């Protein structure tokens, strides 16, 4: 299904992409957005869009200000293990098991890689 949707999109968007010229110019305000921002060039857009969901409970970029565990700074393998254990009911949770079951193993890998990569990128 996902593949079909993507291909529908590709067909529809070829003209848009060709015509718009894909220009991206640095804005004067660029310095202002200092938060870790992985540009669309660097990341798998699927990983990004999956990972954005997590921030609603775990904080922007996984930097939690509440009781939910933050995962900024955690490695991709660590996050993947945790998510897989939630998914397979091997780790206790109130709601994480219910969420983790909504993602394929591949999607869990994409999410773990996104946050793992985000932390690594900023520690360079």
């Amino acid at each position: 299904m996902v593949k079909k949707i993507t291909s529908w999109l590709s067909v529809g968007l070829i003209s848009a992409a060709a015509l718009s010229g894909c220009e991206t110019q640095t804005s004067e305000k660029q310095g202002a957005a200092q938060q870790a921002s992985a540009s669309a060039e660097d990341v798998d857009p699927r990983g990004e869009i999956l990972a954005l969901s997590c921030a609603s409970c775990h904080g922007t970029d996984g930097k939690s200000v509440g009781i939910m565990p933050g995962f900024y700074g955690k490695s991709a393998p660590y996050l993947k293990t945790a998510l897989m254990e939630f998914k397979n009911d091997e780790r206790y949770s109130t709601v994480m098991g219910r969420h983790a079951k909504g993602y394929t193993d591949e999607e869990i890998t994409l999410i773990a890689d996104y946050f793992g990569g985000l932390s690594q990128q900023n520690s360079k």
Partner: protein
Amino acid sequence: MSQKFTRRDFNKLVIAGAAGSTLGVFGGAKPLFASQKHVVVIGGGFGGASTAKYIRKLDPSVSVTLVEPATTFYTCPFSNWVMGGLKEMKDIGRTYDVLKSAYGIEVIHEEAAEIDAANHTVKLKGGQELKYDRLVVSPGIDFDYDAIEGYSEEVANTQMPHAYKAGPQTELLTKQLQEMKDGDNVLICPPGNPFRCPPGPYERASLIANYLKKNKPNSKVVILDAKEKFSKQGLFTKGWEKLYPGLIEWRAGSAGGKITAVDPAAMTVQTSAGPVKGGVVNVIPPQRAGKIAAEAGLTNETGWCPVNPITFESTIHPGIHVIGDSCIAGAMPKSGFAASSQGKVTAASIVRLLQGKVPAPPSLVNTCYSLVGPGYGISVAAVYKLTSDGIVSIKGAGGLTPMDADDDQLSEEATYARGWYNNISQDIWG
């Protein structure tokens, strides 16, 4: 609410979305700088503020103007906690300082008066005109006061508050509860589906009962519902029996619950089973898309806005994305969480469209926490994906707090409800 798409409809939507992106680049809009793309966002709530922030985060070269009349936005989530005496108004107020200073978003505290879809322009109440490459409309809900005889905005503001937009009416309802005579009843009258925050009226009943139990032990809550069933019904009912036995009475629509008229002078509501009197009367009227969305012609016959489920771009006006309570988002409820999730997907889509790239397939999520009591939380969660049936919730995932959850789990859920509020507030308003 869920919309059936045929593959052909779906294809049409996708192509319409793509055509919109070309128009966005070559249409009437004149960006501030020749090559700088400009996005205008109407509405600084859960949907709009999320979109504004995440556009800047994902592509700082795009300039963003957020149009929101309020300098402090009061969140509907946790406003029930204020009514129950667990929080104060200041605890649920969010400002735009961080979005301005850390994310470089231009915030204009004015009302958007008019959208000119053909010319890619938004006119503000003060007369200023904003050009956009893409517009995001996130105006929340509007109320259909006419659906209930005798009810009006004026009555809501003074005698029978809906308190379904957090702000002055939240304070009015809280004050009325405090001043109510012990022994009088609180009436809560929720509307039929679809409406904002499906578990909201029932969390409200819970936290008001919690307040009454301590402060007005001879009073109770009567829910006069237009519906036959409600969100998290089993969990709420179980919690009510445990925490507030006899203090909350729920009447289904067909059992005299549905109200047809109100009499503010007598403080009564009319039902099929006769008039019911309350010391406090909370009427939550039927709802529709925010006013500006309707005026801009973004709504269909349902009163809500049809959108391309990949980009949330209107299927009526290309170049305009409608998110949050106003849009028709398949299986997703009208919640702040859902609006924020849609806002992020829309931000990512807009960034890619402005770069001439293909948007990624959406992944959407929702969690609604409700407090039955201060240490008794319940939740419903779902993960959503796009299929040819539109946005559907993924089978085998999500769902409710288990009916047999023990006290420790329910207490943890209450703790996580607070944690969620702290993090989503930070994730949206910084």
